[in-house]
């Protein structure tokens, strides 16, 4: 594949990210200077005016570089990707979060890794040297590590970071994998990478750092743990 003719469609689902979306667009343009890319913002009817900001960004950067493809209301991450995919004109698709926990400065390393290895998927991992997390207390780290060990033992997934959602896919591969995934939330991210692994797609990892900016929001109550375990069993049985 000729490096010069690759185009990267970056899908960013948003909900109430009026400030972050501007920051992330700036940073993407800063770090991908010589790359052919487009940013597809899938906004789920944010009441805070996120779409207005995107329109201002379109005036600044061009409507061919920033595509606004909104939906009427919050409809979930999986369908946001599918929706974004329909408008993607690149042969590669990047998915990333809008809240700056995924920093665009890693985009060149994703692209480089893919070009070097010809991988179908490059996934960011927080759990290897060179990567890392900031903003997690001990309990959070313990839960994350415990969850990871359990998932590795039960699923043999072939990647070190299962719940990460900063990934580069060949467009055809994403279309194939996403059509067979039915879960919601972070189990959806796990399902994507496990199904891709089972289908034999070549998956590579790059270290990324993750700065958790949602301080104090404990996303790990008892019900989250139960959801996670149910997700693991579901993946064991259906993949």
């Amino acid at each position, binding site marked *: 594949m000729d490096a010069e003719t690759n185009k990267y469609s970056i899908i960013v689902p948003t909900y109430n990210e*009026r*400030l972050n979306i*501007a*920051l992330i667009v*700036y*940073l993407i343009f800063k770090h991908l200077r010589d790359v052919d890319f487009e940013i597809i913002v899938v906004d789920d009817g944010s009441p*805070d005016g996120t779409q*207005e*900001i995107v329109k*201002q*960004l379109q*005036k*600044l950067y061009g409507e061919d570089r920033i595509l606004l493809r909104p939906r009427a209301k919050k409809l979930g991450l999986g369908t946001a990707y599918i929706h974004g995919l329909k408008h993607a004109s690149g042969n590669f698709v990047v998915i990333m979060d809008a809240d*700056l926990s995924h*920093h665009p*400065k890693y985009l060149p390393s994703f692209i480089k890794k893919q070009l070097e290895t010809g991988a179908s998927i490059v996934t960011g991992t*927080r*759990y*290897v*040297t*060179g*990567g*890392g*997390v*900031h*903003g*997690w207390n001990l309990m959070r*780290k*313990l839960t994350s*590590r*415990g969850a*990871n*060990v*359990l998932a590795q*033992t*039960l*699923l*043999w997934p072939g990647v070190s970071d299962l719940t990460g959602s900063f990934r580069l896919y060949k467009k055809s591969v994403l279309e194939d994998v996403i059509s067979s995934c039915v879960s919601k939330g972070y189990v959806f991210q796990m399902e994507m990478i496990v199904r891709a692994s*089972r289908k034999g797609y070549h998956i590579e990892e790059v270290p990324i*750092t993750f*700065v958790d900016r949602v301080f104090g929001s404990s996303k790990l109550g008892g019900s989250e743990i139960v959801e996670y375990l149910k997700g693991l069993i579901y*993946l*064991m*049985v*259906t*993949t």
Partner: protein
Amino acid sequence: MKHVLKLLSLLVVISALWIGLLQASIIPQSHTWLLPIYFIVSLGCYGLLMVGVGLMRFPTCPQEALLLQQDIAEAKDFLKQKGVDVGSD
């Protein structure tokens, strides 16, 4: 093959080995009966060890928070100049 089936066949192979050991009596019967317990306990200990080691070696990046703040400031400056509203959060 579904992953759970892979795990179950592994379990079947291990069980067959265990039954074989029971019948062949290479190791005294009393010991052989306890092997599954040893296996499960070892697995549990290994798991706990992995969690502990992973926790100790958990990569953190405090400097990234600082770098991010700098990036945000830079981005806000640029965008404000260009007329993009970077007011509220």
